[in-house]
């Protein structure tokens, strides 16, 4: 170790001569040359010599990837939710216009029947579209649950490895591994409840004539009452902890 230190000091003192010599001789390990070059110009360009942290492996790698997956899944969810909302609101508008048309028929204000068949077709098309989008969202929600179970797996593995006296490691900055699982579970539960609400709405939206209830369905779809506002903080904290967001 002492020898190594001395050689290092020696190298940095005579770095420039070494570089010239090695370039001439061209028989030096390229890695060392890089270090020496940095040492020579280090003062001026302030290049940080600290090598980039080694690529993550094992549990840390898995957790970091999972955090990124959470972020992407939530974006996907929001996007699908918006498309589904526009389909749902078109269904509601169609329902209301059909209702007022039927009322006019009863009142004998209109007599024509041409549009009803067309409206029904359109309604069916929209319902099918909404159903497809719901399935897509259900898949996203299942993936979220899978992420949570992966976190659980990582925690279990750590518990197994650290059974006994061994202290549990902190993989990133401050979070213990269990906190990732708890956070993920919290988020996952929100989406689970939300998807069950959405499934119910999809089943009922085309069969309700009460306009207030239709309005409630639409508000529920858009404002997602079971997805708390805190979810953004949870996600961002996870991204910050795993290094996806700069400190």
């Amino acid at each position, binding site marked *: 170790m002492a020898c190594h230190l001395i050689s290092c000091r020696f190298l940095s003192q005579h770095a420039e001569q070494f570089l010239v010599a090695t370039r001439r001789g061209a028989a030096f390990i390229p890695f060392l040359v890089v270090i020496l070059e940095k040492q020579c110009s280090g003062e001026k360009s302030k290049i940080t010599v600290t090598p980039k942290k080694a690529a993550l492996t094992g549990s840390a790698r898995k957790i970091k990837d999972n955090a990124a997956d959470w972020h992407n899944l939530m974006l996907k969810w929001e996007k699908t939710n918006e498309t589904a909302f526009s389909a749902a609101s078109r269904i509601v508008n169609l329902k209301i216009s059909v209702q007022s048309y039927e009322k006019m028929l009863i009142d004998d204000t209109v007599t024509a029947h041409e549009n009803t068949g067309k409206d029904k077709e359109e309604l069916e098309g929209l319902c099918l579209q909404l159903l497809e989008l719901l399935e897509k969202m259900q898949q996203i929600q299942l993936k979220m649950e899978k992420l949570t179970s992966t976190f659980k797996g990582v925690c279990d593995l750590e518990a197994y490895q650290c059974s006994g006296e061994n202290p549990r490691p902190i993989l990133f900055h401050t979070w213990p591994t269990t906190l990732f699982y708890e956070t993920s579970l919290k988020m996952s539960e929100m989406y689970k409840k939300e998807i069950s609400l959405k499934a119910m709405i999809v089943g009922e939206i085309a069969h309700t004539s009460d306009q207030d*209830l239709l309005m409630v369905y639409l*508000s529920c779809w858009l404002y997602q*009452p079971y997805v708390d506002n805190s979810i953004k903080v949870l996600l961002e904290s996870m991204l910050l902890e795993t290094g996806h967001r700069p400190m």
Partner: protein
Amino acid sequence: MTSELRPETSSMSEEAAVLCVHQSLRRCLDAIEQHQEEWSGAILECGPLVRSLSNLAEQLQSCQKVTFSKTPLSGFTDLQDRLRYKLQAAVDLTLEKLHDEMCKLQRVRDSVSHQVGLVLHVYEVNGEKLGLEASLERTSHSPSIADMLEWLQDTEKYYRNQYLQRKLLLEVRHNQLSDIKNLVHSWESLNDKFTAKQHLVEDMLLNVSFFREATS
């Protein structure tokens, strides 16, 4: 009588006074032109916000009217409260954005009041030297000082009234949902009601465009 005794000095000082008032008028009009742009920009931004506020009130009303336990939503016990909370939060956010726009309107109102006050002060200081005739005199390209001062006062009053009425409209309470729902009509009627006066500032700026060019 003194003007007869010293005609040259009198006309000199009158000219200087006219110039002084003209310049101060021009500065004020320049500022108003810029403020008018800010004003109409902010009013334009408010439109969609007020509409979404009305829409949110309608959703809140429906949320209150529906008896959740008698609908297919009965399985979701805390849904009504959760939905109301989310909708209220959206109302708050929209009101906050509207408040930002109102701040812009307030800034325009205050600045215009200040500028017009300055012009009137300059006029008062130079009032004696100016004389009545010079104040009323107008040419083909320049309105009289008296006219311009009147227009400025009208403009100031317009901004003041508009701001106050809009501000009062937005003083809504969460439980007065029907008021919030009707807000969009009252807000737009404020535009309509003033359509004749809406161009008040623009018209004034057109009337003084030659004057501004000549004095710049």
